[in-house]
């Protein structure tokens, strides 16, 4: 989902940067508030950032004969709501743009919108929907991880199609071509990421139940029988 440095025309680069900026500023405020008002959650905040740091660094093979990387943004979106991920995701993308020549500064805005805004919000929507129809925390987390991952890559394909529309078939034709690069490859990776998210939240439920209850993810349990 990283659009390479310099690949978006200047007008698009500026446009996406302006679109991303308010989300990142708002996200930074949310992180600062969270740390100040609920310092006991700082550890979990670190876990959310670390999770997306690891997952977005690892490129995995897929059934299509190409490889890609997961995003890991769904976990933090479920824990702290999506705005927080706008900041954490941007830090990941900056690290990769500056040190790894992966993504770039001119495409940072577009990549932030895909990875740190659309992905987390779509994942959070999938989580809320799952909970509303009676799914538990873990099915909700699975849905959030899968949808956040896929939504990020679909957004990247759309951004590239907007910048490079097809001569005959226009933006829609270009979208089909860019989706064919990303979409199928991403499906097994998104499912794997969903399973990893379930593993993370099982560990959190076992070791951080009071924190998850305070965040409203789990109903307070009756006194455990020991």
């Amino acid at each position: 989902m990283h659009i390479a440095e310099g690949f978006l025309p200047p007008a698009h680069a500026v446009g996406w940067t302006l679109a991303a900026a308010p989300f990142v500023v708002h996200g930074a405020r949310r992180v600062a508030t969270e740390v100040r008002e609920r310092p006991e959650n700082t550890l979990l905040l670190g876990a959310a950032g670390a999770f997306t740091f690891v997952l977005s660094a690892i490129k995995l093979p897929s059934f299509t004969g190409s490889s890609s990387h997961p995003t890991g943004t769904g976990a933090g979106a479920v824990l702290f709501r999506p705005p927080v991920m706008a900041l954490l995701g941007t830090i990941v993308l900056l690290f990769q743009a500056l040190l790894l020549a992966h993504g770039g500064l001119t495409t940072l805005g577009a990549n932030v919108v895909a990875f740190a805004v659309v992905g987390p919000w779509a994942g959070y929507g999938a989580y809320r929907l799952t909970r509303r129809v009676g799914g538990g925390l873990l099915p909700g987390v699975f849905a959030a991880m899968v949808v956040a991952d896929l939504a990020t890559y679909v957004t990247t394909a759309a951004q590239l199609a907007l910048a490079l529309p097809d001569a005959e078939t226009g933006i829609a034709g270009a979208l089909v071509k860019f989706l064919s690069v990303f979409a199928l490859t991403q499906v097994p990776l998104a499912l794997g990421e969903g399973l990893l998210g379930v593993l993370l939240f099982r560990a959190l439920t076992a070791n951080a139940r009071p924190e998850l209850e305070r965040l409203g993810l789990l109903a307070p349990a009756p006194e455990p029988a020991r």
Partner: protein
Amino acid sequence: MTRSRLVTALLVLGVVVLIALPLVLDGGTSEFAGTDATAAALAEERGAQPWFESVFSPSSAEVESGLFALQAALGGGVLGYVLGRLRGRRLAERSREDGGT
């Protein structure tokens, strides 16, 4: 407890299978090129002209993979630290409850 361990093992197995199966089924015919690079190549084919260079590019594939490993290590390290702290906190609370009253 054993049931919980079994579920954990099955989840880990599921992740491993999802990653390993493509490699096994493929039998060495594909190069597993990254989709980001493929998309960039497709964009160039369609007339995209990069107008800005990365401020810093790793000078070789080895350096690049090392930096990716660094990113994963930082994330994995912090994640392990947090889960360890949370677990320690819980165990301490539990033993305090057992010791008191």
